[in-house]
């Protein structure tokens, strides 16, 4: 047991150490030219060891060092009041709310589209190309338009941002659910036919339960996409709060350390969300008699 756990942790640790080492090396090479430039103007001469330390402690580095990001992240997560607009928890919460709203709307929309596609050939032919086309438009181009158009009809705040998440998250759910609703084997559909089951009965008693594993697999993709959508949605809106606005403000004022800390916060939120979907999926499927693996 402990050996097995060790076998799992050691590769992860090795990777982590390698990444941190490469990061520090990168920090030195990215920041050194600017530091030399500064030193030359100020007429300061440094030993190479001194230069190395200086590249790790710049207030606005080109690439912040890992410990700078860690310190910034720690301070802005644990040492600030949650209501403070410097708190990363506050910003993550703002992003999370629109992520979740967009994800819920997207999932419901995706399921409805899939149900339509599976039951009506005309929808299968007419809707599917549009759904695929919708995902080829860069969300970065579309997001500002959604915000502006909705603002023109007096829709501002949470919903426009959530709709950008919806736009990204309905797609994997729709595609996954079409596959899931079509997953019952012919023999199972024949069985329903011999019972003279109605379309609705076949849906509720066969197609829907059969699609549950597909639903959770696609919801995992969808919730990550929702988070991306929420962050992207905060960029062009002039949003004052959220991880996206934190990134934008950081880039305006060259606060690279703040930006990296916000990125870390965003990644952690993503991990939490995907894990949450995974856990709920495992519980639901266990309840549905899935063989424990």
């Amino acid at each position: 047991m402990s050996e097995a756990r060790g076998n799992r942790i050691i590769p992860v640790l090795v990777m982590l150490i390698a990444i941190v080492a490469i990061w520090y090396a990168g920090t030195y090479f990215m920041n050194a030219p600017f530091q030399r430039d500064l030193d030359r103007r100020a007429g300061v001469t440094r030993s190479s060891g001194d230069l190395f330390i200086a590249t790790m402690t710049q207030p606005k580095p080109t690439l912040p060092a890992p410990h700078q990001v860690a310190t910034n992240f720690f301070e802005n997560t644990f040492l600030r009041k949650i209501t403070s607009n410097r708190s990363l928890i506050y910003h993550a919460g703002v992003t999370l709310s629109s992520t979740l709203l967009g994800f819920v709307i997207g999932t419901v929309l995706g399921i409805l589209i899939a149900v339509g596609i599976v039951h009506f050939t005309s929808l299968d032919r007419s809707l599917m190309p549009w759904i695929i086309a919708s995902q080829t438009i860069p969300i970065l181009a579309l997001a500002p338009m959604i915000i502006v158009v909705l603002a023109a009809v007096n829709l501002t705040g949470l919903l426009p941002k959530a709709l950008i998440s919806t736009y990204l998250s309905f797609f994997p759910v729709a595609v996954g659910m079409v596959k899931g609703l079509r997953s019952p084997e012919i023999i199972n559909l024949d069985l329903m036919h011999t019972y003279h089951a109605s379309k609705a009965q076949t849906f509720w008693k066969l197609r829907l339960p059969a699609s549950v594993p597909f639903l959770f697999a696609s919801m995992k993709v969808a919730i990550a996409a929702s988070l991306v959508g929420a962050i992207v949605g905060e960029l062009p809106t002039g949003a004052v709060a959220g991880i996206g606005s934190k990134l934008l403000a950081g880039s305006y004022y060259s606060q690279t350390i703040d930006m990296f800390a916000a990125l870390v916060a965003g990644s952690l939120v993503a991990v939490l969300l995907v894990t949450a979907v995974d856990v709920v999926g495992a519980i639901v499927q266990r309840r549905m008699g899935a063989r424990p693996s």
Partner: protein
Amino acid sequence: MDMQASQPSHATVSAPSVISAAGLGLTFQTNDGPVRALSDVNLTINKGEFVSFIGPSGCGKTTFLRVIADLEQPTDGTISINGMSPREARERRAYGYVFQAAALYPWRTIEKNVALPLEIMGFSDAEKRERIARTLALVNLTGFEKKFPWQLSGGMQQRASIARALSFDADLLLMDEPFGALDEIVRDHLNEQLLQLWARTEKTICFVTHSIPEAVYLSTRIVVMSPRPGRVTDVIESTLPRERPLDIRETPEFLAIAARVRDGLRAGHSYDD
């Protein structure tokens, strides 16, 4: 009364006919041109009979069963089930169908799987409970109500699927190679149990198989079929008693019937390459 042209009529019990097919044919349109899956099938199956359909793959035995079940539409001739069209019979839930695979729903426990047709047909909760208990007892699965299908062996799963087909008390049971995927020992056991079940419930059973001993052991009548085109080549009336212990398979009478089935298959060129 079987009405195979080359076959003299047998004076069977004067039970009402459950299935009667006349000039029945079915041609599938495939990319390689039309395929005659069934050709000129004339057959009458009476109430309470146990009829086996035997033949090599492609002989149309499964297709015939699927026509009875309204899962395929015949292109020639007529067929009636209890005097109705297959569609009407299906709408009145005249038959239970047991497939080659158990086809249990993995997210339902055994009792919920048996309850599936009962839910669809709108039985009351009390009636559902009573029927689940009764049919699971009939297939010796009492005590496994709360298990999920994967927790049961293949033979037990197939028994659960038989319970499911019996639960709504259709008089006709259609079985499409139900024990084909099981090993011989399990199969022997299930054959024995199926005969007991048939004796107790007095159902009419149509049983598709490709095993000669299985067909001879189970049936009151054996319909021998051959392929290209799928057709009936012989109908053999069993002379075995209704009470059949497993060792009846070593008796000369049993072997004689088996030999006749083999002859029928050979006459239909079923052993040709």
